[in-house]
């Protein structure tokens, strides 16, 4: 006796959050069943393994059908095939787009469309995330990127509008898209100590201050690209290093601004010249794409490392 066909369809689509989690994590049906058995569900409910198997299959099938809709969340809202309460829908979408920071850290700033797929295997082994899940992550990034790439207006708002994500998740995606677009190098060994959160914070500041829209909020343009003029202006900063007077003036201004706010103020003051030179040099080079990519590497090399060698407590930017 073999089961040829075994389905369950509810008028309200049944969603088991635990199984959804397992599915998102990329486990196969049989692995998921094993994990569920381990969770003690059989004892709690008195069910048999066969029941669990059939239940898991069923949920996986449902998720598989839902996946198409999850790719375009607004469709999920209007579709008629699955009757799912709104709160559930939100949860489905949010979980689908949620990502593992370990994974993001690996692909952050990389070109999302080329080459990375080959590396997924490595990433999977490295992070312990299943290949399937890696692929979903990457596909999510690509999908979001592709949709908002050419769009005007606030990056975060666009993402929220088209993917119905929570504010926090939308910001994270904005950071990912921003990094991917500018191809900031984050994979160098020196940068390994930085978490995704650190980069996301940087990205947010940069989006707010360095992009086209930041300069002129009237021009409701994109958040994606750095403002070329701004970068050009940064070039001018060279004078801060070249000109002794300006250097001193800069120093005193910065010192005034930071006095009392910094635990290592005296060290900073002492090293100001070096640090400032490092920063300005990095800034001045930003007109070249190559240097933009290396922004974070350079920052760490020229700014953070000297600080660290002086035993500053870690304090980003």
């Amino acid at each position, binding site marked *: *006796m*073999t*089961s*040829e*066909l*075994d*389905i*369950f*369809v*509810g*008028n*309200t*689509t*049944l969603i088991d959050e635990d199984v959804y989690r397992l599915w998102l994590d990329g486990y196969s049906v049989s692995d998921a069943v094993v994990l569920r058995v381990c969770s003690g569900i059989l004892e709690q*409910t*008195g*069910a*048999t393994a*066969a*029941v*669990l198997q*059939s*239940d898991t*299959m*069923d949920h996986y*099938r*449902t998720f*598989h*059908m839902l996946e198409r809709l999850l790719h375009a969340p607004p*469709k999920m*809202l*209007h*579709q*008629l*095939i*699955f*009757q799912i*309460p*709104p709160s559930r829908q939100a949860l489905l979408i949010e979980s689908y787009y949620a990502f593992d920071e370990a994974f993001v850290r690996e692909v952050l700033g990389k070109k999302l469309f080329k080459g990375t797929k080959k590396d997924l295997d490595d990433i999977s082994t490295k992070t312990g995330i299943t290949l399937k899940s890696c692929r979903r992550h990457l596909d999510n990034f690509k999908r979001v990127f592709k949709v908002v790439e050419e769009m005007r207006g606030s990056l975060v708002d666009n993402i929220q509008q088209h993917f119905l994500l929570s504010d926090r998740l939308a910001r994270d995606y904005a950071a990912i898209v921003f990094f991917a677009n500018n191809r900031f190098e984050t994979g160098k060994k020196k940068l390994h100590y930085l978490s995704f959160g650190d980069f996301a914070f940087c990205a947010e500041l940069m989006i707010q201050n360095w992009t086209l829209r930041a300069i002129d909020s009237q021009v409701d343009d994109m958040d994606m690209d750095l403002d070329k003029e701004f970068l050009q202006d940064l070039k001018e900063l060279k004078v801060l290093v070249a000109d002794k007077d300006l250097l001193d003036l800069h120093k005193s201004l910065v010192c005034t601004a930071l006095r009392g706010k910094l635990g290592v103020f005296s060290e900073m003051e002492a090293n100001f010249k070096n640090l400032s030179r490092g920063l300005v040099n990095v800034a001045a080079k930003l007109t070249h794409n190559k240097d933009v990519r290396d922004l974070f590497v350079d920052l760490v090399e020229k700014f953070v490392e000297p600080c660290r060698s002086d035993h500053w407590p870690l304090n980003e930017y």
Partner: protein
Amino acid sequence: MPGKLKVKIVAGRHLPVMDRASDLTDAFVEVKFGNTTFKTDVYLKSLNPQWNSEWFKFEVDDEDLQDEPLQITVLDHDTYSANDAIGKVYIDIDPLLYSEAATVISGWFPIYDTIHGIRGEINVVVKVDLFNDLNRFRQSSCGVKFFCTTSIPKCYRAVIIHGFVEELVVNEDPEYQWIDRIRTPRASNEARQRLISLMSGELQRKIGLKVLEMRGNAVVGYLQCFDLEGESGLVVRAIGTACTLDKLSSPAALLPACNSPSREMKESPLVHPPSHGCRSTHNSPIHTATGSRLTQNFSVSVPTLIYTGMGSGSAGKEGGPFKALLRQQTQSALEQREFPFFTLTAFPPGFLVHVGGVVSARSVKLLDRIHNPDEPETRDAWWAEIRQEIKSHAKALGCHAVVGYSESTSICEEVCILSASGTAAVLNPRFLQDGTVEGCLEPRLEENLPAGCGFCHIPYDELNMPFPAHLTYCNNCRKQKVPDVLFTTIDLPVDATVIGKGCLIQARLCRLKKKAQAEANATAISNLLPFMEYEVHTQLMNKLKLKAMNALFGLRIQITVGENMLMGLASATGVYLAALPTPGGIQIAGKTPNDGSYEQHISHMQKKINDTIAKNKELYEINPPEISEEIIGSPIPEPRQRSRLLRSQSESSDEVTELDLSHGKKDAFVLEIDDTDAMEDVHSLLTDVPPPSGFYSCNTEIMPGINNWTSEIQMFTSVRVIRLSSLNLTNQALNKNFNDLCENLLKSLYFKLRSMIPCCLCHVNFTVSLPEDELIQVTVTAVAITFDKNQALQTTKTHAEKLLQRASTDNEELLQFPLELCSDSLPSHPFPPAKEHLESASSNSGIPAAQRATSVDYSSFADRCSSWIELIKLKAQTIRRGSIKTTVTVEKASPMGEGNFRNRSAPPCANSTVGVVKMTPLSFIPGAKITKYLGIINMFFIRETTSLREEGGVSGFLHAFIAEVFAMVRAHVAALGGNAVVSYIMKQCVFMENPNKNQAQCLINVSGDAVVFVRESELEVVSAQQPAANCQPSCPGGEVTT
């Protein structure tokens, strides 16, 4: 030309990409009704086109309005080649044709393609302007309302219940026409969908005409079915109950109709006598046509008739004269109709006087091509024959009507089993005739029908029982006789007094059959049928006893025919009726008592059974108050283990001794076991696992004993197909497989719905089909309803623990015992199955054999049966059943009583984008009031694929299809302005696959009533005025046509 149909195409969304180059679509829409077609403009390059078309107007006569569906086709414009179809929407405009239903259909409909499934949505607005002369048109029957609900719809009042209406139409199946060889699967599927849509429209119209002739204005309990007869054609048939309904004007009256029985009585329908009463009222309800001997045989041979007793006639002292009167009136009143059948399963209080028992009839027919679709005489004749049989069964039970009536077919190749079943009943004569009698009868009537037990009283003459039954005095009123067990196909009457909770009881059975052709095949099937019926019945009986219950409601026995096997599946809800005697236990008797260890084994097994019964009693809270016989003066009872031949029933000592053979008042139901074949019976008896704690299940509308429903409902359909290994197909292996299939399916359901605990699965509806040689398909549709745990806990308490222990009772040892019961197919059971045999034997004996060329009747079995029955009689001595205790219940349970019914309900789930549409197979929505019926939903879909693997295999394919069907039903309801479908039923789910070709096809037919409901919390204010409002006469509906 009495109608103008107006259609506007507004917009589309989520269309599929039809042009790979641009990733866009140039869509336009064709709107077709009858032979007229309109087109919208092409909306270039968009997946979300905004057509905003003008109003397309169709001027049509109302006959077409009823028959034709509105057909909307979405296409992709292609300059150079033929336009590609994206998909279609069929809209049944029938709901717009009666005044108080929907006025406009407007909303988003899924665009459906039979090959690709749903492909985007389209927003459509449909209106109908009807001209005044509409109802003078006799070819149309606009204005007649249809309801799938098998009770009087909640916001209506039945003025008159006219009776049975039926109709069938036949046609050639497009799938089997020659043209099918050259057209695409899509074209073929669409032709089929359209044809069936047309045929159901026509059928509904014709039924409507019949209703108008009867001067009714509505059809309740409308059941429409398709028989896909393959080569020989396509039959669409429908049955229903014609009524005259009045809409209740006051919102307060929307409350369940059970609040005050006495008042309701006055409102209850006058039955326009559905049919003949018993020909011989007083003397013997059994017809004189058959010899007394045969009579005896006949009743014995109707397995389903069995445990139905009825006391009337001379039995009850007080009841006697009154009943006589009653019967005479009924008789004359019912004389007018051909078939006194009612498809209703729930009735206005006071309507149902007595219930006789289940009557059923089956017949095996050979299909042959329908030569002239306009003259579907053969099929009509077949059904007429069966209905006639049912009628005579009912008569034999002293009943003049059949309620809870339904018909079904099972087709395999050219063999077709037609089945009909119902519950024989006596209806209140007060409702059968006009006011004249009313005055004098009423007082007596009420005194005569103590609440909650009247319907149990036997409706016929005790001296001439049509079958052996064991009668006792009613535990409730003590005046009338009741049978010891009652089987019915109806829902539990609201006023019935029930002790404890109910539960789903199923009997499952498979029998192998040799592959054969034509007549040989039909003969083989006919030979098997009575044995199957008998065994199914035995199983039901045993399981009922094991649950310590004494009545079955909602009984539905389905016999399915396949190439090499027959399957029987009976589902019912067992309850303990306070009025009936306490069921005896089950006793096991071994055949070879000389072996010590064997004896021990038996006693061990006996103990297990007793334990199980005890556990079940606790599980279902069956603890009838016991009152000693002396005090109440019960006539019953003798100590246990009395000799079975002696009956000491004081007042009815004149009973025929013959009956005692099978029904002495013994204390137990004895199973004799002595061979391996029977093992399986005991096995299945004891291995039925009860639902996990917090779950209850039943196949009736409401669960007896639970009345505190909360508002969460989840309707679902689950389908399973198993492939049997062809190697060792034996009856036992088959039975086991089938049993496991059903049990596992139930277990899966319990597991899946565990988050709803505590909840009850209601209206659990199993359908079995045998799509291929070694495939068994089981489809289940049910609804899970949560209930208030706190209230339930008061009575449930420790049952969870008990449940756990129970598993230990299902010991495997028990299975070792052979059971004589089935070994030689000689029923030791009092109720042998051969009903059909004998029935037809008596009625058809004069018919020449030539007639059997196309239809196999049972006549040839007559001889065998009568000798068989001899054996039964002998065997019957080993069976003892009876009751020991008399009980009296003081409490009155009314499961749907107004007070209980209302519950604090959660606020409706607000969905900003897509409105939630609830679906339920029940006729009500817990915690809510139905305020409006919008019309019937009756949809037929075909889905086919040639890329089965790519769509996730058979499971993926069917899962998606069923989800799509739900979506389309919901969309239609929403477009009508409704927010729920009640009485939803999936009547057909035919699934065929061909994995080698990577193909599969599925046909689904669903129906239900679209309604608007309002949460009770929102009705709070209104309900305060209820008492006053309830008495007001309801307004005339205005749609009564003349």
